[in-house]
């Protein structure tokens, strides 16, 4: 170890203390997580008053307004619906596709590669792709649905209060079902083969094997996939921004979009209150999930 001399560092760097190694990270996380968090709390008790051109302390006004605001309750409902429905569809669909393509046969490697492609598309651009495909006049999807009779001749997708959210959710399902597939395939491939072989010898039915063996053994992998996907579904804003901007009316406002929209209307305090609410919900639910599903890093 003759090179060692050239790395003459302060003693704190050569000791076994982990602090100097972590210091840059801690600094960044304080700036990223702690300061914005407390600044957000501060903002939620203030509101910008245009006449005074300043943030004025308003006490609990923003929070009272939040719980009496119908648009807020609507956007909370949309966020919850979006998160849970997409999560369930992506998990079920993802599991089905994973079971289908979990194979060593030639060709399945290429299929898995093709499925990775959707993951790297910027979500805003994925939204654009579906914006043209769902266009009321020359979109491919309404045209196909109309020609098989599932959509009335005069109906639209993104301008219809009940269908618009599905028009947004289909993008998420398209882009992120492969996320579930790839994780579940990796989980399936890491399972030992002996229990399955002995179950087959014992004459177990495929569905029984899936329920009694595959699912319990995949528990950890499923929990991680659900956690990460759930977080990202809850935070989603790109798709609604691009596809509907929250419309028609306020039918597709999510919490994040509503918060951003208040912010652009210079209701800085109220916008911060909505985003803080969304943040607190995901911190509680996310950490509870990690605790109860016993997810370990």
């Amino acid at each position, binding site marked *: *170890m003759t*090179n*060692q001399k050239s*790395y003459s560092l302060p003693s704190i760097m*050569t000791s076994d*203390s*982990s602090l100097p*190694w*972590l210091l*840059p*990270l801690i600094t*960044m*996380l304080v*700036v990223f997580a702690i300061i*914005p968090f407390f*600044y957000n709390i501060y903002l939620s008790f203030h509101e910008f008053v245009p006449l005074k051109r300043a943030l004025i302390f308003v006490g609990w006004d923003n929070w009272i307004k939040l719980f009496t605001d119908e648009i807020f309750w609507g956007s909370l409902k949309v966020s919850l619906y979006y998160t849970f429905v997409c999560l369930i569809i992506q998990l079920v669909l993802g599991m089905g596709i994973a079971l*289908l*393509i979990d*194979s060593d*046969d030639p*060709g*399945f490697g290429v*299929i898995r*590669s*093709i499925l*990775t*492609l*959707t*993951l*790297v*598309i*910027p979500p805003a*651009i*994925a939204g*654009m*792709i579906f914006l043209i495909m769902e266009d009321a006049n*020359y979109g491919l999807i309404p*045209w196909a649905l109309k020609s098989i009779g599932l959509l009335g001749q005069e109906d639209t997708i993104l301008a219809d209060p009940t269908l618009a959210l599905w028009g947004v959710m289909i993008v998420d399902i*398209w882009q992120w*079902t492969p*996320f579930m597939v*790839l*994780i579940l395939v*990796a*989980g399936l491939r890491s399972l030992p083969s002996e229990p399955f072989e002995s179950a087959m010898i014992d004459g177990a039915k495929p569905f029984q094997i899936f329920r009694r063996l595959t699912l319990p053994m995949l528990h950890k992998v499923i929990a991680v*996939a659900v956690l990460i996907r759930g977080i990202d579904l809850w935070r989603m804003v*790109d798709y609604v*921004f691009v596809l509907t901007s929250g419309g028609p009316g306020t039918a597709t406002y999510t*919490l994040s979009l509503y*918060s951003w929209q208040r*912010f652009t209307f210079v209701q*800085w305090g109220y916008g911060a209150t909505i*985003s803080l609410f*969304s*943040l607190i919900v995901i*911190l509680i639910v*996310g950490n509870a999930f990690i605790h109860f599903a016993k*997810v*370990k*890093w």
Partner: protein
Amino acid sequence: MNKVVKQILGWFVAAIFFFPIYFWITVSIKKDKDIFALPPKLFNFDISFQAYEEVFGLSRFLYVEDMGAVRPGGGDFYMMPNLVDSIIIALGSTGLAMLISILAAYALSRLPMRGQQHFMGWILSTRMMPPVAVAIPMFFIYKNIGLMDTHLGIIIIHALMNLPLAVLLMKSFFDDIPKDIDEAALLDGASRFFVFWRLIVPLAIGGIAATAVLCFIFSWTEFIFVLMLTQTGLKTIPVVSTSFVTSTGTAWDNMAALGTAAIIPAFIFILLVQRHLVRGLTLGSVKQ
């Protein structure tokens, strides 16, 4: 299930997921009349690279004269500066995130630390924060310290956004390297930093590359921070692509040309690190 049936179903699924990408690429090389054709023209259309020329610069010299009257919106479709902005930000934020995360991940993997589980939990919690909840306070902080609307400001926020991923993922790669290597070298009198820099980092180089690629892609595709923390100084591709939607119409072919140019490099990158992709997507907790 029959092997042939499985193959057919598998390819059918792959085709469904690939179809929107294919359709988007065809929009970028179609002429307007074919873009709006119903039933859609998937194969039998005239090819034109005019949209690429307009977006990536040739229109500066060739088409700019008659663009205003002909194209919807009539704006300037030249997007080269935004491509450069995107590259600067993605490279800068990836470098910053990797520098911070490999140091921290080594310590989390090797060195004794009180409350390590809590610290990891804290890192994971920052991964949960909705971007809007960070961007609103950051808007005011950046205004005060002059980072608003600058490359450096976005580089920092994207690096911060990627830190939970980079730290947890790098820790899992360092955990794969036997600790005996460190201990043997330390017994020989090598310093911690020497062990880290000369022995462990070279051994983890594949993992470092995979982590860097994922950081690059997440910065490349990020939308809401750039939307809220920039005004006129810079715009990355995801944000600027929304500017093709104007009150007088949408320049679909230009938008698709820009979008296609933005996703093809990402496709190549992701296929290069496919071996580590699942580990990356699960922040290091599911190994392939």
